[in-house]
């Protein structure tokens, strides 16, 4: 009897070992698929000089090696060395290589989802290694091992499902937009009817918003004030699959917007204040016959062309600006928001550091969507200190994620500031052109 139990246990252990080996093999194949030329360059080049250590806002707030760019990338690099380099076969101890197992998967999760993909480390790295791209391997392996954050998978799937059922919900959506008419007119009374045009073929601009009227009303008022030929997209700009690192789903989410823009024959897609959505549509997917601009770029253009005017007396408080990482250093929208702010704020003060060097707020990479409040508040301490140091009473930004995180930091650290979207400030300061 005892022998039979022992045999069964032995068999179960062997089966487990075979399964673990098969899983490691499958994940190794997944890893290999991600080895494009850039990834190989990044994995081969790091000299472990440590210059990126202090670049990460998480490390600056919680000084632990695992929260450094190199600490994160090394988890992936050690697996790379184990399976794809001779060192892993002959002298694994030299590079402290890692097997694909439960422990390394935990380390990958810790690395990938403590990184917001802000790429501040890339600015400081002597080689310009992109930790966010390296982390895409970690995320792919986690998805392959069914260990990714399920909330992000669920949100990405929901987003895709919502997109698939757009035909059935079109009438309800149009009605909901009609209900916003009054709110838009409150900001810009001369708005045409409807104040939020929806799916109008031949429009010049397709505006892609988020779920929630806060991302539509102010933008609508500004575009109406500028006399823009525009319409609203049926789809949300947010791309949870990009946070998740599921490139197939991310492309599905982004491409339906591109398809819609093609169908409507627009010349530009204007993306709501959402850094990741903008960067994804602008830089991370194929180009088609139209431009992709961030809404703040559109506002700046309207101002420079004299199509809108803003009254700075409506915002007498001291205002500072938080550069969203995906918009500024990762997409180049750096001076446009400053020009808009200078037009609407009498007292604008810069954060230090700013622009490409700005500290990440700590809410990117899906962390806001995942909750993770305790981690976000701890890792955002350096941002909170930076905000406080400006002495401003209003902090403006142009990204939904940043807005949520900055609001949470403001509350958590008792900063007593007001966090505002740039478009909201601009819409409230609209005055008639001369």
């Amino acid at each position, binding site marked *: 009897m005892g022998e039979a139990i022992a045999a069964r246990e032995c068999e179960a252990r062997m089966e487990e070992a075979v399964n673990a080996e098969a899983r490691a093999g499958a994940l190794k194949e997944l890893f290999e698929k991600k*080895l*494009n*030329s*850039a*990834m*190989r*360059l*990044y994995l*081969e*080049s*790091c*000299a*472990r*000089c*440590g*210059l990126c*250590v*202090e670049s990460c806002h998480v490390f600056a707030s919680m000084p632990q*090696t695992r929260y*450094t760019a*190199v*600490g994160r990338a090394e988890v992936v690099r050690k697996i790379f060395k184990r399976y794809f*380099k*001779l*060192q892993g076969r002959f002298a694994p*101890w*030299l*590079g*402290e290589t890692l097997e694909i197992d439960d422990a390394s998967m935990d380390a990958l999760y810790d690395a990938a989802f403590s990184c917001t993909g802000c790429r501040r480390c*890339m600015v*400081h*790295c*002597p*080689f*310009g*290694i*992109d930790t966010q*791209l390296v982390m895409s391997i970690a995320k792919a392996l986690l998805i392959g091992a069914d260990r990714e954050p399920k909330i992000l998978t669920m949100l990405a799937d929901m987003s895709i499902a919502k997109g698939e059922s757009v035909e059935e919900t079109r009438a309800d959506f149009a009605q909901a937009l009609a209900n916003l008419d009054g709110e838009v007119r409150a900001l810009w009374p001369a708005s045409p009817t409807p104040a939020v045009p929806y799916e109008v073929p031949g429009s*010049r601009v397709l505006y892609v918003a988020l779920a929630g009227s806060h991302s539509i009303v102010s933008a609508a008022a500004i575009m109406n004030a500028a*006399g823009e*030929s525009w319409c609203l997209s049926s789809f949300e700009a947010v791309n949870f699959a990009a946070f998740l690192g599921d*490139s197939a789903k991310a492309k599905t989410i982004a491409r339906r917007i591109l398809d819609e823009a093609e169908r409507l024959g627009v*010349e*530009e897609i204007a993306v709501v204040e959402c850094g990741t959505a903008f960067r994804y549509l602008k*830089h*991370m*997917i194929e*180009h088609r016959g139209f*431009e992709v*601009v961030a809404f703040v770029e559109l506002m700046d*253009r309207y101002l420079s062309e004299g*199509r809108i005017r803003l009254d700075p007396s409506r915002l007498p408080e001291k205002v500072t600006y938080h550069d969203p990482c995906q918009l*500024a*250093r*990762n*997409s*180049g929208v*750096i001076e446009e928001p400053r020009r808009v702010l200078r037009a609407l704020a009498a007292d604008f003060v810069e954060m230090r550091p700013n*622009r*490409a060097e700005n500290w990440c707020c700590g809410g990117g990479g899906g962390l806001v969507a995942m909750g993770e409040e305790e981690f976000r508040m701890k890792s955002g301490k350096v941002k909170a200190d930076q905000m406080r140091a400006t002495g401003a009473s209003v902090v403006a930004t142009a990204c939904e994620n940043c807005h949520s995180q900055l609001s949470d930091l403001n509350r958590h650290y008792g900063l007593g500031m007001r966090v505002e979207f740039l478009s909201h400030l601009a819409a409230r300061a609209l005055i008639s052109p001369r």
Partner: protein
Amino acid sequence: MAGYLVAQAVSAATAAAPASGGSAAGAAADAVSAASSLPRSAFGLVLDRAEYGIMVPLVYAALAFLLAALAARLVRILRAPGPPYQLAIYPAPRLPLLAAMRDAFGMPQVLRRAPLFWAFLMMYHVGILALLLGHLDLFPAIRIVPVGSRHMLGAGVAGLMVTISTFYFLGRRFMGETRKISTPGDYFLLLLLLFLFLFGDLMSWGNSWTASGFVMTKKDFAGYFAILAKLSFADPRTVLHGPHYHFIVIHVLLAELFFVVLPFTKVMHAFLALPVEALRRRTWARRSPPANARLAWKKP
């Protein structure tokens, strides 16, 4: 037997060297050649063979391995699919290639954040460049420093530059966060380089500390490189006289080890720095307003 014949040949050659007036080795070289003509012990014969192996055939083998492995690694990277999307950091430079070159060769990111580290890095890389040139200068076809010069290019300063900076890099590896992110491979590589440089220094500097002055000169080293360049497989001791020969052998052995491990270490950055920097500087997406847009907007 072959070893004995080699020893005889060396003895004859070293005896002839002072007569030709080519070497300043003088008495020291004579003493060595005299010593080398004595009947050899079994250990001595094995050592002779091993040293010859290190000094000639293994040099070719290590270089061939280095070139083949380097080519294989570079081809593997070049043949991999391109990056999935634009990886640039903004503000984008007007001249991306120039910016990438400035990043790769000037290391402005290091200068801004760690000026002392930058100073040592520059000293190291300039020193490496000088050493490379100095060694190339030993080939008969290349003439940078006069053939008759006692010193190689840099007169030992280049060696000191790399040695001092390697000491700094090694010390830095034991400090703070850098210690925590270091792997055994990082220490081994630095130690390998350090000893390679120290033995090099021993020849360029230590050589002149002997009672008889320079035992081996640039001309002697050039003789050795000529043997290698001509593929004559002659014994290097026909041109390298003096008590430092064994140190040269160790220096060459360490260099061979370095050649063999180079393609598998982070030293690959020497070949990858420019393409990797270009990823940060090159933009693909258009940022300007569309040419076909109705930008000549007129208020209705």
